[in-house]
């Protein structure tokens, strides 16, 4: 009985948590995202797709993973990557009229 319980626990612990696809729509308006979308939380190993739109032309830069993507109004720009490294990575926007880089969102990759 006890050994069966342990066996169950071991099996449960050893079963890899399957990484899921995570697709997030991120509409930038006036250089900012809606408040609830400024922290994007995913799990380590997830296949992440960030789908960006913006009302003006700018470049988004995901630090750490170091992915840059140009966004033009009226089109959807996608970033696709596997979230293999844990941590909090900030996403900056460059360009636009301000010329000042600013943080538009954080990507948090939590360990499994």
């Amino acid at each position, binding site marked *: 009985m006890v050994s069966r319980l342990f066996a169950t626990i071991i099996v449960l612990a050893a079963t890899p948590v399957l990484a899921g696809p995570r697709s997030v729509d991120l509409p930038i308006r*006036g250089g*900012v995202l809606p*408040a609830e979308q*400024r*922290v994007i939380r995913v799990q380590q190993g997830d296949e992440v797709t960030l789908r960006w739109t913006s009302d003006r032309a700018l470049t988004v830069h995901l*630090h*750490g*993973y*170091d992915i840059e993507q140009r966004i033009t109004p009226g089109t959807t720009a996608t970033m696709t990557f596997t979230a*293999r*490294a*844990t*941590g*909090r*990575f*900030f996403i*900056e926007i460059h360009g636009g009229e*301000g010329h*000042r*880089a*600013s*943080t538009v969102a*954080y990507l*948090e*990759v*939590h*360990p499994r």
Partner: protein
Amino acid sequence: MSRIHRGAVLFIAALAIASPAGAHGFGDRYDLPIPLSIWVAGAAVAVVLSFVVIGLFVRSPAIAGDYPRINLLRWPVGRILVDPRLWRVGQIASVLLLALVIATGVWGSQDPTRNLAPTAVWVIWWVGFAYLSALLGNVWMVVNPWSALFEAAGRIVHGRVEWGLAYPRALGVWPAVVLFGVFAWTELVFNGRAVPAQLALLIIGYSLITWAGMAIFGRSVWLRRADPFAMVFGLLARFAPLELRVRTRRLCRLCDGLCEGAGSGCVNCLECFVHAHAAERQLNLRPPASGLLEVERVPPSMVVFVLLVLATVTFDGFMATGTWSTIESTLYAAVPGEPDSKLTFALTIGLLGLGALFVLIYRIFAQGIAIAAGHGSSSRMASVFVLSLVPIALAYHLAHYFTYLLIQGQLAIPLASDPFGYGWNLLGTAAFRPDIGLVDARVAWYTAVVAIVAGHIMAVYIAHVVALQEFRQRRAVIRSQLVMLVLMVGYTTASLWIIAQPIVEFGTAG
């Protein structure tokens, strides 16, 4: 103020703050905050173990101020470590690196990640030497390029480089306090800190001040009383497992009576070590934090110096918390001017304020210890117990920079091939990209909490040994340590709190 107007102000503030790379020195941090459960467990363990340590002390009557040491000079490996030829190689390497960093700053690409200067200064030197000093020994003392160049100049012109003006005793270590304050401001506030050309200028300015000071008052006096880096790395090296020791203090006139190692011998004083007879020299392995154990007469200026170092380390982490964001927005909105100067104002006030707060809180506790023990003045208490706080700050520092050093430090690999950012590939490593997955978040969390709790326990232990040496009656020891314990638990909990903060730098923009 209308809501919309207020929102606009905060939004502008958020834009100004939002160069998140600039939380400190240079480079990005990718740490996830530690989960609440780990924070609570860490704090609880710290409190419980504190009482275990005190309980053990109540039973054992006395602890000698001395600590066990093993002289490594008995073995070849120890003799190699103190070989003058090895030291010379280290000094030449550090002088060449200093020249290279200034050259890349002046003539290299001004993109911070393509130029060697910001990574070399903020990651490799400032964070790297802090780790080296605390976890190995006072390496900076040996390889300090400014000291080595000044000594070489003295040898060339036969000692005529030192004017030898008597250093005014009343100055204490205040010059080092001021210079460290300027450095801390540069690291945490100055917005040109990652600009290679600005860094080169700062290094040149520091060189002129250092050499002028050495020429006027003498090299060893300047290094022990006015040079902020010799003093910071020296302070951290008190924690280290290695020490250089001269067995008797006969030679200590050379280091102006400011040697470590009260009573017997002279510890971590290069001049004394170099001039001592071989039979007098030791390279000792010792238990960690032993160098903090001795009750020394720490002058009031040195108390302020230690507290300023601790406050700076804390401010570095505190700057990334939501609490600071709120304070910063308030300060930001309180003054007119350009966004950059408003931000500089807010950060300067924050840094000065936290430094003053540390001094104030510590003075209150020193007074409390004097009252509880019924013995000694508060300034005497402040002086004897200040070093016992070092392990907490150090552990927090090591925890705070652990992933930063391992991840940002990797930039040194491509930069070694292309230090100027000209597109060279001298060593074939120019295409290397840092692996951001080198440290798992979970590893970082546990390392941080274990380090901070271990630092806390060492601090409690050190304060206790110091109290046993300072007070004769057991009652005074216990009562003084209960006050000290409140301060230490507070400091440790605050350190853990900072690394548990969900860092979001948006303010309430939009």
